[in-house]
């Protein structure tokens, strides 16, 4: 009985989040579709045709998994950071705090909502990519689990950012100055084997490298890193970020005085 009540509460948060990002689809679903189409045209078609093969694949085919993953990462993060900060800003976080919902259900609901937007955008970008290249799935389970786990990692990151944020500036600093550079340097557009030794080693500290390469392995069967190690890293990030987010919720950081 208690489990059913908790599931209803969880599902209510998830549907509220899905309702939010579909209501404002012009701000949430359309921009990544346009941006990624431009990436495909400019980097894939115009520049890519002069670059030639990478990792044994046409450049367009090589960057498609990275671009899909990039849109999943930015949209999962962006959904939770803006939604949870908005909830704090408008004070409707109080609707959740007065209700008998355990903190882990609140976190799970927001993360699932963020993952839902990340995956929705991922599907849109995948469909768009089919206009420019052909994609075949090399390892279905690895492809699906990588994209879901990555969406969870960045939804958790967005949640933590939103908890600390006090102004609208605070929710754009991390995506602009940390997330975007890490994504560009995470092997979306190139194989790290092209980099000099020092930069290759430095790239190993970029978590996005593991996610992009796992996903690329799932689709194309090639990767710069060991897939087992990549999964361990992704799951490790989820555990650490979830534990930290729970700590913030339990202490009421940024939401209870």
């Amino acid at each position: 009985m208690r489990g059913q009540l908790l599931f209803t509460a969880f599902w209510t948060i998830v549907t509220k989040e899905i309702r939010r990002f579909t209501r404002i689809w012009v701000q949430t679903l359309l921009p990544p579709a346009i941006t990624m189409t431009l990436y495909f045209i400019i980097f894939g078609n115009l520049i890519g045709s002069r670059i030639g093969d990478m990792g044994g694949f046409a450049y367009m085919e090589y960057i498609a998994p990275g671009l899909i993953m990039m849109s999943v990462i930015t949209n999962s993060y962006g959904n939770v950071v803006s939604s949870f900060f908005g909830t704090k800003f408008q004070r409707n976080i109080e609707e959740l705090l007065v209700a008998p919902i355990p903190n882990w259900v609140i976190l799970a609901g927001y993360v699932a909502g963020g993952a839902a937007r990340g995956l929705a955008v991922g599907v849109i970008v995948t469909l768009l990519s089919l206009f420019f290249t052909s994609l075949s799935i090399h390892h279905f389970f690895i492809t699906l689990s990588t994209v879901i786990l990555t969406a969870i990692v960045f939804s958790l990151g967005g949640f933590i950012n939103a908890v600390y944020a006090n102004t609208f500036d605070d929710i754009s600093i991390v995506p602009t100055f940390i997330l975007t550079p890490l994504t560009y340097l995470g092997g979306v557009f190139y194989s790290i084997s092209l980099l000099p030794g020092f930069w290759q080693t430095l790239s190993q500290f970029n978590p996005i490298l593991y996610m992009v390469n796992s996903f690329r392995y799932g689709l194309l069967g090639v990767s710069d890193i060991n897939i087992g190690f990549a999964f361990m890293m992704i799951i490790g990030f989820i555990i650490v970020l979830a534990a930290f987010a729970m700590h913030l919720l339990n202490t009421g950081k940024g939401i209870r005085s």
Partner: protein
Amino acid sequence: MANALVLEDLTKTYANGFVALKGISLEVKEGDFFALLGPNGAGKSTTLGIVSSLVNKTSGQVKIFGFDLETQTADAKKMLGVVPQEFNFNAFEKVIDIVVTQAGYYGIPKQKATERAEFYLRKLGLWEKKNQSARMLSGGMKRRLMIARALVHEPKLLILDEPTAGVDIELRRSMWEFLREINAQGTSIILTTHYLEEAESLCRNIAIIDKGKIIENTSMRSLLLKLNTETFILDLKDELPDLVAINGYGLRQIDARSIEIDVDKNTGLNRVFQQLADQGVQVMSMRNKSNRLEELFVSLVEKNLEMKELA
């Protein structure tokens, strides 16, 4: 009769060192209509914030219908509905979605939640607006929406923080009627308000909080009995050339055709009218100068301030 709410030695010190509550203990009986009054910054919102789980207490205990808010959190929260002072819903959501979503947070399945939302939105005159974005509602409608949202899980204790602030008189009266109705049906209510007339009209028991301490906690009737003098305004038929005198009463002229008079509770009004009639003054109408509770409230808070200064 069981207690709807028990506060035991509740304290709160904010991170900046401000001590908002200095050990508050309070009991609100089941079925009561209870007023929690106090000047701005007295600790009312902090107290209600702790009860509503929006503020972390420093020490003390909160029990809602016997459930400890700290150790039996879910059971305690289910008993409670909160109508905050400021609008705190997502203004871009539809009215119906706000209420149904809140029901979902309490584990109420969608179909039942929708039925209940319809019931309370109809009851509060908002059903016609169900598909409107909440930001399009008037101030009074937004207040009623927050009441519908707080009631959708059918709590046994309802906390209303300034529910009629900025609401016109007609709507305020209809909200009073609604609150009386749900109180009569068994919902215990705690009300904070700056309209002391509202507290006097609705509430049976009262606590006054000032500077983080309860300075009065009694029944409304007992509190009002403490008031020894009432001031009335008399409207006269003709202009008074000079201020008349009435033995045993304080009298002041407001303008040419109205006077105010202080009447001791033990004296009554008969002698006033007798003496005015003897002097040829004809009274057309009479009204209370101010709300009785307001006078008491001011005197209690001022007394508390004087004691603090002496200490």
